[in-house]
């Protein structure tokens, strides 16, 4: 996705690498530092594939490079954005795998694992609630946070269902 994020920023106007880094960090709510090296690796790959062009400040090819989007870069970006995300949210679920492994191993203390997992989800929910309060001025990031909260609520309900059904099985 970093590739498309960079193309998206360049679709707006040409930038040099540092601007791309800070622009992206800002768009993500200023909560995450993006690795510089990762940005430059991606940029040079995009340049190699003809999706962006880089122009050096000095004629000898030194100094800051300013990148701009090429027509095929724009086409690539649009094609990516027009596609619905096909991959379902992974039924992830590391915790589910652990439940299965417990079963394989013949452990019968799933209720303890469920209780610990609930604790972890509740703690995350609390932190996201606080994040939701602190990110209200950034509409995009706050949408992401609200989405994560809804998923956590579903995860917590699902744990309750696991508990009930596994209990019924063991009776």
């Amino acid at each position, binding site marked *: *996705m*970093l590739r498309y*994020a960079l193309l998206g920023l360049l679709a707006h106007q040409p930038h040099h690498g540092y601007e791309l880094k800070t622009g992206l960090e800002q768009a*993500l*709510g200023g*909560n*995450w530092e*993006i690795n510089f090296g990762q940005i430059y690796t991606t940029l040079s790959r995009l340049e190699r594939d003809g999706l962006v062009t880089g122009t050096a400040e000095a004629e000898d090819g030194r100094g800051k490079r300013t990148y701009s989007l090429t027509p095929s870069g724009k086409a690539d970006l649009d094609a990516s954005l027009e596609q619905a995300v096909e991959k379902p949210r992974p039924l992830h679920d590391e915790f589910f795998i652990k439940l299965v492994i417990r079963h394989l191993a013949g452990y019968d203390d799933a209720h303890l694992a469920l*209780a610990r997992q*609930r*604790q972890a*989800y*509740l*703690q*995350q*929910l*609390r*932190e*996201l*609630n*606080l*994040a*939701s*309060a*602190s*990110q209200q001025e950034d509409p995009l*990031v706050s949408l*992401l*946070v*609200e989405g*994560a*909260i809804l998923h*956590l*609520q579903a995860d*917590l*309900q699902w744990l*309750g269902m696991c*508990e*009930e059904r596994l209990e019924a099985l063991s009776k």
Partner: protein
Amino acid sequence: MEPIIETKEVWKVYGMNGASVEAVCGIDLAVQQGEFVAIVGPSGSGKSSLLHLLGAMDHPTRGEVLFGNQPLHKMSDAQRTDLRAHQIGFIFQTFNLLPNLSALENVEIALRLGGAAKAERQARPLELLERVGLGPRARHLPRQLSGGERQRVAIARALANRPRLLLADEPTGNLDSKTGASLLELLRQINRQDRQTVVMVTHDFRAASHADRVLVLRDGRIRGETRLQGQDTHRALGQLLALEL
């Protein structure tokens, strides 16, 4: 330190058409001064029955409830009524304000019922409404207020007689999630700043996660207990955002 409220092996069994329904099954619970506790469970888990027992609104079938070390079942009806009027504040899902009285009068009547002196009855209602952010709307009738504002009035009313315990029954059940979140934030503030003890029942994990201790109730039993901590929003956001790019 002795708990504000405590249950010992408390049961509530209802008889219905010859069958009996066990709503609360031997719950042991102790809430300390200054705690914010959430009891979360689906409908039918027994959370309302438990809240009624904690609020001295119902008698347990077995076991006992102690309020500040006093067993409720040894009190007379008059003593229990007195306890509810002075020591316990209630907030309900449906707000339960008196429709023909202004916000101010709704708070004042609680003080009157609690036997407050005249000076207090005059000064405190507005103080409380200001505390919940409704000073400018003190003269409005409930129907002139939004749901969130009505619930703020209900909080002010519940705090009128400086109760030792604030009980909240699905306080955000009739509010949208944003209004609900700011109401819970207010409850947290009151809990922190005034060391007000709060016990809230809810079916909503999100609401529950505002509390410092969460008890999970199912089929009348406590199935789990979690202490929540920390204010680290950074970590949660970092986890979210670090995933994809």
